[in-house]
């Protein structure tokens, strides 16, 4: 069987080339972009060995007006600016005001919130600030992991 190994090697080379092409992502390839207003919160997650939290603004604003969270529940207008931890959530503060199994699904669904790529810094994705100052993309997760959670470019102000 002469041609078979050659063919196999050819396919290997081809797929390696395609893979490399995909990774280096030329401009005309659709790149991954987060949804406008998605907030990644990584105050404690990385340190606790959990994936950071993704908060989708769009999903919540379909169901609640801004005021419910930002006035009634006391969320500051600042990504990472709320000292949210799991204890406060299960005591009914912040996310826990709804995510209690009553208004919305409860806290044991860890992976629905803790769903970001590990090492993603705290920031508002697709925000003007992120575009102006630069994104801490998960692609650079290795270096971003070393940066403190509230980097100046994190779109938090």
């Amino acid at each position: 069987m002469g041609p078979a190994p050659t063919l196999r090697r050819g396919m290997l080379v081809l797929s390696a080339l395609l893979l490399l092409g995909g990774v280096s992502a030329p401009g005309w390839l659709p790149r991954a972009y987060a949804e406008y207003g998605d907030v990644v919160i990584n105050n404690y997650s990385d340190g606790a060995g959990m994936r950071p939290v993704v908060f989708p603004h769009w999903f919540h604003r379909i169901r609640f007006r801004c005021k419910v969270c930002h006035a009634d529940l006391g969320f500051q207008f600042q990504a990472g600016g709320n000292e949210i931890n799991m204890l406060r959530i299960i005591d009914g503060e912040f996310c826990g005001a709804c995510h209690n199994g009553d208004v919305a699904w409860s806290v044991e669904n860890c992976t629905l919130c803790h769903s970001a790529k590990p090492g993603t810094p705290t920031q508002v994705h697709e925000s003007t600030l992120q575009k102006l100052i630069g994104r801490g993309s998960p692609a650079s997760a290795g270096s971003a992991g070393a940066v403190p959670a509230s980097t100046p470019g994190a779109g938090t102000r």
Partner: protein
Amino acid sequence: MTPGAVRPSALRSMALGAFCLLALAAGNADPARAAEPAHGERIYRAVCIGCHQIGVLGAPKAGDRAAWEARLAKGLAPLVDNALNGFGKMPPRGGNPNLGAADVREAIRFMAGAELVTEATSGGGSAAVSAAVPVAAAGGAPGRSGPGTGPAPSDPQAPAGSGRGAEVVKRVCQGCHQIGVLGAPRIGSQKDWAPRLKKGEDTLVHNAAKGIGNMPPKGGQPELTADDLRAAIAFMVRPPPAPASTAAVGAAAATGAASAASAPAATATAAQPPQGAGVNRFNRLLRPPASRNPPPLRDGIHDPANDGTAVLQPPRQAFEPLPDSASGNHVDWVLALEQGLIQPRWDLADPGRKPLVMDLNIVREVKGSMPNVVYPHKQHLQWLDCSNCHPKIFQPKKGANQISMAEILLGRKCGVCHGKVAFPVSECRRCHSQKKPELAHK
């Protein structure tokens, strides 16, 4: 329903290979129920849209001609058959057991485009096509074609001898257990099943019957008996050696990440030749419309390896009924609220409470040639409470606030929301909306 640009070519060729086998199978089409195109669209909106709108887990996207052309190459009947019986990561009948062959066919006709389907069924050229349609028409029996209609290879997804277990798995369990949705142990995965098997088979059957963790009782099908569950578990723990097509699907699942990364290079050029590829692409630095509102699995921040990611709603699905806008989420949220297309609560507990809206416009005269800014309290108070802005961000006194575009761009003043969640600053004219009399020279 934007036409998708990218399809993993590896997946496509595997799917083609599988179709070759499936072409032998007799379809169970029901010509009496052939329906008008509107029916297909209805089915699509009710069932298929969840995956086929944005191409979840490699589903061919509605309106993506290239993706459907490849699948229709062998004709419509094998495709209908696949959709009925489940294929790859697609659950049988898209997860809705009430769908018939005619429903599925109409939905495919809608998603692929009527002329593409007609082309495939009439002038397809391949023997399989011309044969499949008459067979489908002749074998009008409801339900799946019985074992008498052909030899074993008629159904490559159900290996011979697996019997009841295979049938239950295919009809009910594989929707979650094929790819391990929410941590479900995957079919044939020793790693997933070994710790569970330690508890004993009876415990497993009992848990499956009562529901455990994220699994609903009996996988959501109350008519299943304990024996069905036992057979299904036995099948999932150790499925019989897979024939070619199942192996291909498994391989596709295993290399999913790799092919997703590698294949675009091959297919993107084929999918959108008029755009011009490479260095001379039209609007090189502009984000292509197809990349807007990506599903969580492809948005670059969600971890595709995370169980929950696949469960999250793709934004495009939620935005479909909402009015479009040029930037941000590409949704005009204010209009959506005005038109009653969304009913976000004003109060956490009381869905009936309405905001007290003050209709007061504040005009800010601005320097330079830009039109003056009109700040409408009305649209803001639909969403916000006075205390959100006053007095921390804005002094509640006309002329007391220094506001500049630089501050807004840095996320202060209006930029606390605009440029993060409210429409971004690129929409200049939505704020700078009042003509200055001395400059209105046109």
